[in-house]
């Protein structure tokens, strides 16, 4: 059999050797080593300091971005200067995405060619192949699993955040409605207020069991202004109820997203939706998350 060498000249090989390694076995070994690697990093936190020796660099960078968010949330200014962590991430990129794959693939090539030529591989080749394989195993061995898990986490976070954001939006809007209702309560009827009666509340649509914030002719929903395109909120439903003696006003807000209890009976005959209720008296207001 003729094999073309790198300088282009044909080389005679006496006998075709059996494949030196089965690639699927090699891949399984890499997955196993990669799993051990990840497990070690999760189990022993101090190993995280050795990120440069081979754990997904993009995860380290993402951690830094989220830390900036936590700083902003706490009212602190995030530190945007160059830090040691940035150097580790750079090392991680160089080692796991450039050096380790090069060591692994080029030495794998040499091993296979050596075996096909029935010649012994140099110790350096074997060592380079093993070191390269171990260093890039967390990424290339585990890549499919990491990707699937990552997408699952992303989707789950979005689902959870959407439901919680909807609940927060309904709660914030209810607070605004409650304040407006209390203002309305104190203003005399000749100035357009309720004159100490909740029952005087007039909704533009004429239906107190299904109205939107726009019906109340006040400024728009608080969350709509803040959240904007980031987390667009579907319009919620609001239901006004007063006690017989007109001392307490109850406002229920029903969101569009599913709440924690999927069998929860909402006040507007829907099932399982987010629902928050605020109980209003002239001097107090109390919020309760129903679902």
């Amino acid at each position, binding site marked *: 059999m003729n094999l*073309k060498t790198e300088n282009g000249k044909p*080389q005679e090989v006496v006998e075709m050797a059996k*494949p030196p390694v089965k690639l699927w076995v090699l*891949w399984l070994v890499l997955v196993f080593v990669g799993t051990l690697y990840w497990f070690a990093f999760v189990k022993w936190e101090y190993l995280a300091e050795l990120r440069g020796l081979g754990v*997904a*660099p*993009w995860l*380290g*960078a*993402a*951690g*830094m*971005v*989220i830390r900036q*968010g*936590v700083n*902003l949330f706490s*009212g602190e*200014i*995030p530190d*945007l200067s160059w830090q040691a*962590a940035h150097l580790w*991430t*750079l090392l991680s*990129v*160089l080692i796991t*995405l*450039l*050096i380790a*794959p*090069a060591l692994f*693939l080029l030495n*794998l*090539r040499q091993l*296979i*060619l050596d075996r096909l030529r029935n010649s012994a591989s140099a110790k350096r080749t074997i060592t380079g192949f093993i070191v390269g394989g171990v260093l890039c195993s967390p990424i290339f061995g585990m*890549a499919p699993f*990491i*990707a699937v898990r*990552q997408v699952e*986490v*992303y989707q789950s976070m979005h689902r959870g955040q959407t439901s919680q954001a909807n609940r*927060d939006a309904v709660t*914030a809007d209810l607070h*605004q409605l409650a*304040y*407006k209702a209390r*203002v*309305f309560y*104190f*203003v005399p009827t000749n*100035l*357009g*207020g309720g004159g100490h009666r909740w029952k005087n509340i007039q909704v533009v649509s004429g239906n107190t069991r299904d109205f939107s914030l726009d019906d109340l002719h006040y400024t728009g929903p*608080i969350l709509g202004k*803040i*959240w904007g395109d*980031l*987390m667009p909120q579907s319009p919620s439903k609001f239901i006004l109820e007063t006690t017989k003696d007109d001392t307490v006003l109850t406002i229920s807000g029903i969101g569009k997203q599913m709440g924690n209890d999927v069998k929860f009976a909402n006040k507007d005959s829907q099932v399982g939706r987010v629902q928050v209720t605020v109980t209003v008296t*002239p001097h107090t207001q109390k919020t309760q998350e129903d679902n």
Partner: protein
Amino acid sequence: MRLLTIFCMLAAVMYVGAFFMTRDPEVAVNAAGAVALIYLVVLVTTATKPPFPKKFRVWIMAVAFVSIACVATSWLTQFYQSHWQRTMLLTIRNTISHNWMADTLTTRSLQTLEAYHNRPQSSKESLADVFHRLNPGSSPGTTVMDTFFSDEGRKIVEALTHVESAADSEVVLLGRDELSPKQDSIFAVLGMKVGKPVARLRLTARGVKYEFEN
């Protein structure tokens, strides 16, 4: 080896350059990652060129393609997720600030409104007079600070109420959360909305109007 050295240097330069241009570690790692991607394509092509057996070449290219695609998926998902989370955290922070400000401003106004409409008919007190009576020392230009703590005792909001004007028929209050990050340049660098949450409340005999300034 020379090719590897060149690509390593290029990745490092891209990483450091992108970081100092954007101050965003993920943009920096993306820049270096793009260089690494090009290198990986070159590497796989080089490592499987003849006389490498065709059977192995196909296998290695397939595994490399799947691995790189999976890494790219994970990489991009994480990129969008972390930026989304950072923006979301700031947004939640703004929501909390606005809710506390709305609470502070409206509570002061409600007390004034109730007292104004319940005052004796013979009283000649204006809206501003009632406001000053209930909030001593709150002449126009003065500022009051309300501090709110979390359940763990941590200071979370410093709602600053500034009396902008107090005429006979209208009192205007301006609210601002002092604890929100205030270095606008930081937000500009991160490509985020600039400034602190600010709200204005107009109190008249007919009620209150709450407006967002930021």
